[in-house]
């Protein structure tokens, strides 16, 4: 029992409640919003230490013993995901101080952001499959409103696609849960992991696993279920795009990792082969989509899809090295991807557009911003010594170890193509000449750290770029922690024993 486990869930809830109560005052909202994120980060750090020192932590909510009550489980994977979500929450909250307008603040931007984080954290912590559904819905409803907040035409169009496809995927998930319950009579994931191997009809279990693959696959935006993502993620304000692009799809990836290591390991030859194919296609199609677009955020959206492929690839190998690579990739990708979104926001503030064809001259007038972009973009493409290099290296090594040569070659090739799209942005927006018309008057005149308060947007970007450098130059500790997480995943009996007690 570790009472602390509930804090990453209730802190955002308390903060959201306070922010709702003081919603009339925008100053209070901002203070509460940012302070809440700091407290959340602190609580996650405390928990991380507990898990690192003492192994998997468990909390039975309401004092109802597993498998009857709802269990919260914190293993290393959960902790890493919680940590990155808290860091991103803080970054986004600070960035929003400038990016989010008064109107959205009045309609409850900060409470919604915290509710979103509560849903995300709950998904990472819960040890009950039905409870996972509930947290997904908490996350979804907050994301729906955040996406539609502001009611502009573009946002409504984006939100409609997002809402309908996500509703459908949640219903599929619920249907899968119903089948699991019908087969085993339990919903606790540790208990399920124990009872699923006893089910005689292995074919049925595999079918259910495919239902989960489709449902989580829609949320994680894998091939061929990703079309909603590039169609909606570039419509809301940048801060919201960034947290969606960074965190939300990764919750789907987390759920896939969880169920395909803990629950569905009966027929690995079948399920994980499908995962491999999916991973390959996701990488290639995503990066090709990015190559054909000329809108800053749309390119980034397609890259989200492409990068998801690498994570699924690591999962599909089902080895310690592969899972370690997948987890490291998730962490690195959240940092790099969100940062690119945040930079696109600054570029839009300066140039007034997201269309690459109407952008240019950023390198000449804002060299510091160019450096920040380069760090994130090269990290995404996997240049040494940045974080992406270690992520790709681990996944590729895992691929060579299981002799999946074609898939590994694809992964390396896709890395090159990623570089191509990043170069496209670099050559037009940064190295290109300043367009002759349509450039706002303030371009080149306001400084990044000048009177315009633009520094509120630049400081979070600097912080993330610093983290990317840190992870890149000093990767060993994080890689080791990822390896611990991967080993815990491959040995479900530890998880089961932590939840249900010694067998």
């Amino acid at each position, binding site marked *: 029992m570790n*009472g602390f486990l509930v804090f990453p869930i*209730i802190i955002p*809830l308390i903060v959201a*409640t306070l922010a*709702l*109560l003081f919603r009339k005052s925008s100053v209070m909202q901002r203070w509460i919003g940012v302070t809440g994120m700091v407290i959340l980060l602190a609580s996650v750090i405390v928990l991380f230490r507990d898990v690192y020192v003492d192994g998997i932590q468990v*909390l039975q*909510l*309401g*004092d109802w013993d597993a498998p009857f009550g709802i269990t919260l489980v914190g293993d290393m994977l959960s902790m890493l995901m919680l940590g990155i979500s808290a860091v991103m929450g803080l970054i986004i909250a600070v960035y929003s101080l400038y990016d989010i307008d008064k109107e959205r603040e009045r309609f409850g931007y900060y409470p919604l952001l915290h509710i979103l984080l509560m849903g995300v954290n709950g998904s990472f912590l819960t040890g009950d499959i039905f409870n996972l559904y509930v947290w997904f819905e908490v996350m979804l409803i907050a994301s729906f409103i955040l996406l539609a907040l502001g009611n502009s035409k573009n946002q409504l169009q984006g939100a409609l696609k997002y809402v309908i496809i996500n509703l459908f995927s949640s219903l599929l998930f619920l249907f899968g849960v119903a089948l699991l319950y019908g087969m085993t009579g339990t919903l606790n994931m540790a208990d399920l992991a124990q009872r699923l191997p006893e089910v005689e009809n292995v074919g049925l279990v595999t079918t259910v696993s495919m239902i989960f693959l489709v449902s989580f696959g829609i949320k994680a935006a894998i091939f061929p279920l990703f079309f909603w993502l590039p169609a909606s993620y570039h419509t809301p304000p940048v801060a919201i795009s960034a947290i969606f692009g960074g965190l939300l799809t990764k919750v789907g990836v987390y759920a896939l990792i969880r169920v395909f290591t803990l629950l569905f390991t009966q027929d690995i030859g079948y399920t994980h082969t499908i995962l491999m194919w999916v991973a390959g296609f996701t990488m290639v199609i995503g990066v090709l989509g990015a190559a054909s677009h000329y809108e800053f955020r749309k390119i980034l959206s397609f890259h989200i899809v492409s990068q998801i492929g690498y994570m699924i690839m690591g999962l599909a190998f089902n080895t310690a090295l592969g899972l370690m690579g997948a987890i490291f990739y998730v962490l690195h990708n959240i940092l790099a991807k969100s940062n690119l979104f945040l930079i696109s926001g600054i570029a839009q503030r300066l140039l007034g557009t997201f269309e690459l064809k109407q952008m240019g001259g950023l390198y000449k007038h804002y060299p510091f911003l160019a450096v920040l972009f380069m760090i994130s973009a090269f990290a995404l493409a996997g240049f040494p010594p940045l974080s992406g290099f270690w992520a790709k290296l681990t996944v590729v090594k895992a691929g060579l170890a299981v002799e999946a040569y074609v898939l590994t070659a694809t992964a390396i090739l896709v890395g090159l193509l990623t570089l191509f799209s990043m170069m496209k942005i670099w050559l037009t927006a940064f190295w290109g000449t300043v367009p002759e018309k349509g450039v706002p008057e303030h371009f080149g005149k306001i400084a990044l750290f000048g009177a315009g308060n633009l520094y509120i947007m630049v400081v979070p970007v600097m912080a993330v770029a610093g983290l990317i450098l840190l992870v890149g130059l000093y990767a060993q500790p994080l890689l080791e922690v990822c390896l611990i997480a991967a080993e815990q995943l491959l040995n479900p009996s530890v998880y089961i024993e932590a939840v249900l007690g010694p067998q």
Partner: protein
Amino acid sequence: MKSLILHTATRLMIGILILFSLFLFFRGHDEPGGGFIGGLVGAGAFTLYAIAFGTDLTRKVLRVDPITLIALGLASLVVSGVIPLITADPFLTGKWLFLEWGNSDIKLSTPLLFDIGVYLCVVGFIVTVIFSLEEEN
């Protein structure tokens, strides 16, 4: 909506509906009923009022902004969950306080607090939705 029948009926009904919603709410302690269904009936009362007399008057009758109701409901939920933390029990553990008052026992508990939160949230949520849809026109 301008209709004498609706106006008169609403004046009669609103009291009964709110009373019934409270009845359902308290009944939920041991028998079918509870915060959710009670909240639905309560929200129904205010929705009826909003249809009959418009949202401005309903806001006056309600006195509190519906979003504040949601916030108060959430606060009540949080408090009911956090109380057991004081005695180092897990979040959401049920805590009971039995009081004797004259001949009757009074049972106060964190589940009751939780239920009040649910009630407030449901009323607040539905009334918010109805108001924003009504005010659209």
